[in-house]
């Protein structure tokens, strides 16, 4: 059936001439523009990596020079002896600790008067005095050599400085002045001769020390308190172990050679495994990340220890148990807590929490808690408590999401089988959302490790590896952290110095640590995701 009045086919103009730029239509240009913006995240990540390395990578070369001069100037050689001396000091400290415990026992348990207790400790004190003096020959040697070695190092640094000065003069074209700058080369061989010449003296000193110690060990008196005797036996063993290190030290000193090259990996391991972060020291600067990392880790563990039960518990409560009015109240409040700026929390820690915790720790009846009482107002515990408050909202939000994503059918099936609410929650819902909860905890860890202001203000900032041997009371020690050290020292270091570059390397370590934590969090979620819709 054809229509008689069909009009002539109109000529449509479909294609408008499109404006083209670089062969792209306008729409494609817009798309490219937005796509370019989407790449910003990638670019920023790349830029962060690039610039951190640009400023930091030179560190390893500089640190190698740092270690090289440590060797060339004989500081390393002197440190062998110094180490021996310090080990001995540690032993005398142990002895002192035993005395303190004995005294405490005598006065508090046996109710002796102080004079009486001291009288009973007289033979012990006599022994401790002899033991402490035993090291004297080595100590004298060390203090003499310290000056010599420092003098060599100073000479070398001055030489380096004049070199730089001459180069600067040359670069501005002042050839005459540059020629006038005299550089005195340091002949390490002759400079080191007085130090190396002390080897026979050291040998003699070591023999004397050994004789002294052995003699004093033979006359070790029995402690007036019998229950502490095991400590003395342990002390004997420690001294024997100490004496056993003498030949190794001597051997190391005999084969020591200032010309031995320092490989680059030494500089790297010195940073990653170095147990000292020591700057602006008269003797030798060390840039080891371990104390900072240990501090960061300790604080994060305290924070997570508090925040995980609270955050996950609150997530379970809000999602499964609370009424909807409660939900409407709790969720915004926790979000609000997450908006409290960390510097305000840090200030709160300084002004209120530090003192409050110390006051609590000094209550007599709480003495059984490890680490109590403590005297440092700012320590890992203070910072950890505040960081917990920062971690809780992160953990809560993500864990609540994870719990919310458990399919409804799981819950219904569990109820249908006659399980109670508690059984359903603890045996069905939580295990089903465990991957999400674990990743929430990991992201909470990432948040806590990267937090700066709270730890800078409240952690006490003592650069030392926390003494884990004291058990749980380690949490009350002041520590320093990776984030804190950057914030504290970056403003004061000259640009381009080794210290400046070391701080950038700490930043690199922090950056990759954060990426690693993120990576694991995502991996866990992806791997253990429940695949039932």
């Amino acid at each position, binding site marked *: 059936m054809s229509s008689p009045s069909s009009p002539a086919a109109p000529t449509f103009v479909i294609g408008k001439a499109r404006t083209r730029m670089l062969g792209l239509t*306008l729409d494609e240009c*817009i798309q490219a523009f*937005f*796509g370019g*913006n*989407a*790449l910003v*995240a*990638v670019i*920023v*990540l790349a*830029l962060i990596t690039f*610039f*951190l390395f*640009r400023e930091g990578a030179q560190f390893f070369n500089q640190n190698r020079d740092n270690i090289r001069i440590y060797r060339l100037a004989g500081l390393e050689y002197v440190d062998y002896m110094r180490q021996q001396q310090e080990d001995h000091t540690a032993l005398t400290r142990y002895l002192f600790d035993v005395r303190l415990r004995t005294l405490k026992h005598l006065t508090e348990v046996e109710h002796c008067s102080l004079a009486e207790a001291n009288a009973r400790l007289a033979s012990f004190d006599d022994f401790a005095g002899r033991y402490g003096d035993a090291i004297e020959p080595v100590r004298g040697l060390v203090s003499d050599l310290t000056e010599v070695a420092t003098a060599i190092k100073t000479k070398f640094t001055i030489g380096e400085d004049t070199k730089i000065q001459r180069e600067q003069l040359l670069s501005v074209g002042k050839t005459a002045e540059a020629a006038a700058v005299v550089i005195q080369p340091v002949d390490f061989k002759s400079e080191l001769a007085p130090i190396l010449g002390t080897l026979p003296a050291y040998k003699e000193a070591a023999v004397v020390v050994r004789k002294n110690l052995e003699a004093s060990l033979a006359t070790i008196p029995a402690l007036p308190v019998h229950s502490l005797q095991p400590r003395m036996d342990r002390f004997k063993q420690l001294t024997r172990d100490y004496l056993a290190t003498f030949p190794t030290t001597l051997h190391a000193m005999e084969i020591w050679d200032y010309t031995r090259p320092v490989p680059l990996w030494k500089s790297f391991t010195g940073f990653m495994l170095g147990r000292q972060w020591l700057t602006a020291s008269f003797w030798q600067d060390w840039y080891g990340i371990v104390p900072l990392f240990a501090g960061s880790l300790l604080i994060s563990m305290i924070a997570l220890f508090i925040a995980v039960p*609270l955050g996950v*518990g609150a997530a379970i*409560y809000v999602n499964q148990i*609370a009424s909807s009015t409660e939900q409407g109240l*709790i969720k*915004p*409040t*926790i979000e*609000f*807590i997450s*908006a*409290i*700026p*960390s*510097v*305000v929390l*840090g*200030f*709160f820690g*300084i*002004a209120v929490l530090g003192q409050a915790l110390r006051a609590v720790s000094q209550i007599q009846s709480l003495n059984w808690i490890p680490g109590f009482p403590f005297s440092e107002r700012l320590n890992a515990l203070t910072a950890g408590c505040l960081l917990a*408050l920062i971690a*809780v909202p992160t953990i809560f939000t993500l864990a609540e999401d994870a719990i919310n994503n458990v399919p409804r059918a799981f819950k219904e099936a569990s109820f249908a089988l006659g399980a*109670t609410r*508690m059984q359903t929650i603890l045996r069905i819902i939580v295990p089903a959302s465990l991957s999400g909860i674990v990743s929430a905890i990991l992201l909470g860890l*990432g948040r806590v*490790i*990267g*937090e*700066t202001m709270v730890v*800078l*203000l409240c952690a006490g900032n003592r650069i030392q590896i926390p003494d884990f041997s004291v058990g749980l009371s380690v949490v009350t020690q002041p520590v320093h952290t990776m*984030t804190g050290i950057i*914030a504290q020292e970056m*403003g004061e270091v000259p*640009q381009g110095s080794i210290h400046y570059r070391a*701080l*950038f390397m700490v*930043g690199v370590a*922090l950056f990759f640590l*954060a*990426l690693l934590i*993120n*990576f694991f969090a*995502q991996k866990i979620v992806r791997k253990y995701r429940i695949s039932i819709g």
Partner: protein
Amino acid sequence: MSDLPHIFASRPSRGRFLERATFWVFRLATYLVLACGLFVFGDIVVKGSGTVFQREFPFVNTTFLTHSPESLYVFEYKGQKHEMGDTEFRAFREKEEADAKVAGQPAPKIKTESYVYSAGGIWPCIVGTVLLVVGSMTIALFLGVSSAIYLSEYARDGRFVRFIRLAILNLAGVPSIVFGLFGLAMFVLALKWNVSLIAGWFTLAFMVLPVVITASEEALKSVPKGFRDGSLALGATKWQTIRSNVLPYALPGILTSSILGIARVAGETAPIMFTAAYVVRDKLPWEVDKLGDFFFQGVMALPYHIYVVSSKIPQNEYTERVQYGTAFVFLLIVGLIAATSIVLRNKLRGSYKW
């Protein structure tokens, strides 16, 4: 007969007791968190409001809010205890010295204790924070929203998009101090912008970018697909569709969720420490010779000021006022921003239902 309980009524049992006890543990955990948060908030509000508010008219301590920080001088003079800011103290001393000269006595010696930053106000810090927030959020919103438009409207799921998403996720996890280092290395040193507003803007903008992208994408995704299909069916181009049928509906969502980003930008100290913040600066930001200098000047900022006053000066009754006062004002600003965001979003969730 009626004494007997209903056979289906719940009877107390060990299991039931255990369940109730467990639930109470969870409840306590939740409320403990809330109590801690509110305690911190309350402590600062209570102690800080003493500095910011006053009993007499106009009830707000205008000096604190509108003046620059000054040193505080505490001294005893002629049996009276005085506390004065720097300018007031100088005027006072000059007057006393002049009086003594007239009376023919030697100039009086005034023994003072001084505390830096403890008198005057925090006006430059407020200004600096506002400038930092406005600038960085403008940059972040521009980059973030464009990025989100690409991810939600243009991109097809593929390796490229997954790569970008991975980058965004990882960027969100980078510690703020690392952003500070990055800003120092790139903007302050490599681009030679020195410690300046613009360096701080870019550092903060990059830091908050993941928040803005995620929030914007969520808002864009919540616009129904039918809106786009309808527009495309009428012959509009992709860009026309986005401009007229997607963005207007997504905009409120984008803005409200991004306010949380503002709270983050305003609250962070570490990124601006090396890039934008000065410990103290006499001039206000608009007192510049030429317009170009405006971007290349450092500013004082509230979070950094809190850090300075809480770590660099001793804690006592004289310094406490400025410490708590600054913290209170700062918390108030950040809290207001966050509360606005939360309330607006909850409202939005209810009103936009299609």
